[in-house]
């Protein structure tokens, strides 16, 4: 439950802001000029703030749409991502948001209409492309976790119905799927579920629905006709990882129709250096930021041989259920030998 709402003066009368405030009638409301005064100010501690995040309601005036890093392409066409919200209800220990933002407060941009207008005009620019342009949601938040508060899905799904040459990918771990089940499936929308075996999920994905609950949600969405993506990213190395991933995949594919799965992606645990430094400082006692990592790659990642072993093993397991065409594997390393200096660098990194 949110007990403090910061609101930019300019969205004070915005219907979506009013609706959100109506939901949190007992919250104290603090008026601010710009969200950056609160969200970006220095000297905040993400870990402490995560104990009781506030909600910031704001207007996103520019840079609403970004190109995705070239590597991350499941659709084959032009790829963009957008974030109607920064930060997440859940608290995954590996989440890069902890390293990216000063603040753990939830920042919700209420001007959905402007996001949709940007998406529509960008989709139009790609109107003659051979493949549709993809628009990813859920990089900087979970797409659906806050949906009952924001009404995000309803607004954006309706918009994408009018954009046949665009695809929306909703990245989520949430079981808040009521708004998706309440309408016919939209063919140009993919619901991409982030999954980890139950033992990993319960230890590292704090506050997120458990593995089985997510699988239930996937089954219901698939039965309803929604396109489904599956994301094992990051794959987490640990003592029993092969058994754990084998068990999770078996459980999953006993229930979902593998042939109807849009794509499955696998990625190692990796972080940009600056984010890693910050996260390790926040959780110096956590094994996740120590186990098997080094800085041989352009970012902090598992040692190359270890990552190859782990991703290789999980890829082999996944291929029992999924065709090569459905599977995308994202290693952290360019092809080539590991550089030893990376190990020493990680030891002295502060």
């Amino acid at each position: 439950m949110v007990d403090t709402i910061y609101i930019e003066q300019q969205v004070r009368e915005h219907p979506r802001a009013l609706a959100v405030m109506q939901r949190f009638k007992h919250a104290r409301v603090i008026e601010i000029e710009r969200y950056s005064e609160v969200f970006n100010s220095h000297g905040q501690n993400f870990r402490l703030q995560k104990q009781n995040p506030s909600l910031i309601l704001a207007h996103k005036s520019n840079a609403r749409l970004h190109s995705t890093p070239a590597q991350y392409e499941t659709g084959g066409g032009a790829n963009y991502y957008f974030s109607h919200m920064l930060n997440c209800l859940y608290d995954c220990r590996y989440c890069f948001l902890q390293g990216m933002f000063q603040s753990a407060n939830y920042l919700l941009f209420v001007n959905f209409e402007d996001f949709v207008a940007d998406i529509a005009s960008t989709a139009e620019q790609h109107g003659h492309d051979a493949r549709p342009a993809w628009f990813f949601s859920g990089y900087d938040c979970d797409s659906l976790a806050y949906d009952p508060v924001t009404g995000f899905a309803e607004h954006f799904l309706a918009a994408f119905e009018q954009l046949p040459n665009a695809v929306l990918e909703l990245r989520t771990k949430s079981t808040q799927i009521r708004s998706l089940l309440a309408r016919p499936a939209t063919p140009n929308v993919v619901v991409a579920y982030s999954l980890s075996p139950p033992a990993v999920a319960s230890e590292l994905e704090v506050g997120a629905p458990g593995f089985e609950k997510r699988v239930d949600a996937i089954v219901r969405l698939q039965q309803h006709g929604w396109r489904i993506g599956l994301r094992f990213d990051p794959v987490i190395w640990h003592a029993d990882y092969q058994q754990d991933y084998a068990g999770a995949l078996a459980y999953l594919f006993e229930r979902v129709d593998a042939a109807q799965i849009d794509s499955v992606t696998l990625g190692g645990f990796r972080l940009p250096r600056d984010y890693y430094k910050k996260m390790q400082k926040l959780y110096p006692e956590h094994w996740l930021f120590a186990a098997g990592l080094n800085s041989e790659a352009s970012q902090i990642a598992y040692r190359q041989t270890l990552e190859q072993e782990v991703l290789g093993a999980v890829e082999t397991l996944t291929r029992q259920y999924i065709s090569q065409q459905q599977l995308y594997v994202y290693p952290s390393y360019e092809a080539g030998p590991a550089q030893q200096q990376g190990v020493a660098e990680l030891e002295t990194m502060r």
Partner: protein
Amino acid sequence: MSSMARPSLHLVTALACEAKPLIDCFGLRKQEQTDYPLFQGQLRDHKVSLVVSGLGAFNAGAASAWLAGRESALGRSQSAVWLNIGVAGHASLAPGEALLVHACRAADEIRSYYPSMVAKWPGKTAALYTLAMPSQDYPADAMIDMEASGYFTAVSRFSTAELIQSIKIISDNQRSNLEKLSPTVISDLIQSRITELCSFIDNLLAIARLPQPADYLHLISHLHASVSHRAQYARLIEHLSATGGLDEQLQQALGQANTIAEVLAMLRERRDQQVPVLNGVD
């Protein structure tokens, strides 16, 4: 292994009469020969320090910085909780009301400071303007005082926004007479809110627990080690401590090593053998 730090509590008041109920409540003792009046004691396992800054934002900032520097020199500043307690004016609120400051701005500045609202405070909150002079020209929507902006500016260099807070007790409004504000009246106003203040302090201390890095430097105290060696050692120890690889046997072996290079090699070897085991608890 890393452990959770026991945060210390730093209280800042402008006046001795504002401090008195807090000194009594926590049983603080005056410290001798200090640059600012300083009172110290213990609240359970938290060290408590109270500094009386004198009037004005500059004094509030200087006294706070002085306290932070002093405690840091003693190795006790990590994750300290800071609370400024004092009286303030407001156009309409009744004397005696206690409000948590949710935004603070010096009268001559454009930017506000927003304390992070993580610790539970069931009462009202309000913005606060810090003025250079006493005034009875009350803004419509905020409290006024003479210290908080200096306090926030200084302390934000030493702790994190979630742990730097200010609570003001309303002492005067448009209908009251400032001249009637005697030290006794001010002490009584603070005293009347001591329960809420203590409960907020408990909430702040409860959220302030941050891990302390593992410290095993004593194991290599017999060895010559450069700054870079020590940094590598500390990092490897932190890694092994996190992954549970720092057992008795290894610690004994480290204590018997002849060179720092030997120590680092042992730690690296152990690090590379460690495989994380999930325990189902975060």
